[in-house]
């Protein structure tokens, strides 16, 4: 969609509620600044991601959402980012890969800043990696870099728990680190030849 100026892609969408009428404006970033609209998204952190993704902000009367850079549509199910914004649900598992970049800030908001899963990994799938190490374990645990990041997340949680003197919680995090370590070690071991 083009901006009102007709020269650039509209990336700022403002919806004003006047009485019971909705007035929508679609502007490029430059025009938005001129109109005195902050093109950064606004909204409460605790608001659910679905709402956020659908463009509800906490501001009274006005909603401002910047359009993220996006892949046109998911190659697997043809879902577009716009339709995700409208419905609050993605089309298929592949959508997470397609839209990962634009989803990441939304995930961070919905999950207290988290970007990496820690916790259960499908057990049979994991067991099957023992007979086929390599690519299969990557599919479950990610690259070495991603595994390191997951461990870093857990170490940070451990530090926080200890600093807050929540020792029971710290013990749970330590268990998690240990089990992840075991999985990674087992998976990384080459098959005995």
């Amino acid at each position, binding site marked *: 969609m083009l901006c009102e100026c007709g020269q650039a892609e509209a990336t700022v969408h403002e919806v004003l509620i006047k009485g019971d009428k909705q007035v929508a404006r679609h502007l490029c970033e430059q025009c938005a600044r001129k109109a005195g609209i902050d093109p950064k998204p606004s909204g409460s952190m605790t608001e659910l991601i679905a709402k956020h993704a659908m463009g509800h902000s906490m501001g009274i009367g006005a909603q401002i959402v910047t359009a993220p850079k996006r892949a046109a549509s998911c190659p697997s199910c043809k879902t577009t980012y716009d339709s995700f914004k409208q419905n609050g649900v993605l089309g298929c598992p592949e959508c*997470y890969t397609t839209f990962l970049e634009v989803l990441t800030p939304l995930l961070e908001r919905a999950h207290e800043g988290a970007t990496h899963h820690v916790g259960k990994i499908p*057990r049979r799938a994991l067991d099957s990696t023992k007979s086929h190490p390599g690519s299969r374990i990557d599919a479950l645990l990610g690259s070495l870099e991603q595994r390191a990041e997951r461990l870093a997340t857990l170490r940070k949680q451990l530090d926080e728990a200890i600093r807050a003197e929540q020792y029971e919680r710290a013990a749970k995090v330590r268990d998690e680190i240990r089990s992840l370590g075991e999985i990674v070690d087992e998976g990384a071991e080459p098959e005995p030849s």
Partner: protein
Amino acid sequence: MTTPAKDPTPDTFPTAELLGGAAELLRPDGPDHDVVVSSRVRLARNLAGFPFVAHASRTDRNQILDLCRHRLAAADGPGPFTWLRVHDLKAVDRSLLVERHLISKQHAKGAMAGGQGGPDEPRAAAISLPLERLSAMVNEEDHLRLQSLRAGLALADAYRDADALDDHIEAGLDFAFHPRLGYLTACPTNVGTGARFSVMLHLPGLRMTGDIEKVKRAADDMSLAIRGFYGEGSQNIGDFYQLSNQTTLGKSERVLLHDMESSIVPRVIEYERLGRRMLIERRRDILEDKVSRALGLLRSARLVASDEAMGLLSHVRLGIVLGLIPDVPLATVSGLMLLVQPAHLQRKIGREMPQAERRRARADLLRATLGREGLLRDDPAR
């Protein structure tokens, strides 16, 4: 007079088993049952290789039903499960499952994201009878929503069962899983563990002392959701509140479980008990009056709406756990809290009734159960 409704299809709905009184939810001795009604763990899972439900074709969704049904029925798994094709059920039976918290309102309606869907969408519920500790919704927002339930505060037990069921299903079906994001779900708010740990709390003390708002604020600060009796988007009825985690990414199941069961919920329990003690010490007359009036109304009213019944039963529940009502067992009140709901009431009586008639039937049931009916049974006016 209303005649029994004619069934268009043979009725295989397990009414007798559901209303048989054996459900875990009715167990009166769960840990911390004075405050915690029940503990629930829900796991959201999707099958790899299929679009999420709202984008899946009818053929896909029927195939998902078949795969899940087959897997749940496997002899080596937990169960057995009673399989209910929700789209084939009568409206009253779908409502009955909602009232028992076995399916969501959304699942009862067959509603899907973006305002699509309807009652005919292929979907199912699986229930382990007669305890109803384990259940599953198939083709709700996600392909599979597993639920494990325990009476009282017993999230760890509930999780153990849910985890085992999850392993059993995964032993035969591939789940959509991402190395960085974990279990993939239709809505990104559930991604990661896909786990929701929730407890149904009875907080009349905090409501009466006015401290419930503080709990709500504290919950918000801790990224927890406080919801009404029927979960998302529902009102609180009779001082029952559902507390659950919102964060599913970046915290492992064991940490989430610990945060809820060993840290957050015990504090709310302590706070509620403190409120109740304060009411007993400083405002005993008012408290006793409230409880006794509630029981009195339930024992004598002739027309009772379901929300009113829930409010009164909530006060009676409080009276029982505080020892102010010695002659009514807690299990009776827990049972009534289900039976006064519209669908339960109609199934209990055995026919569908318009609302006005339900109020009368509900009042009759309450009187009969709570003790005065004997005196009134031969009333010539009836």
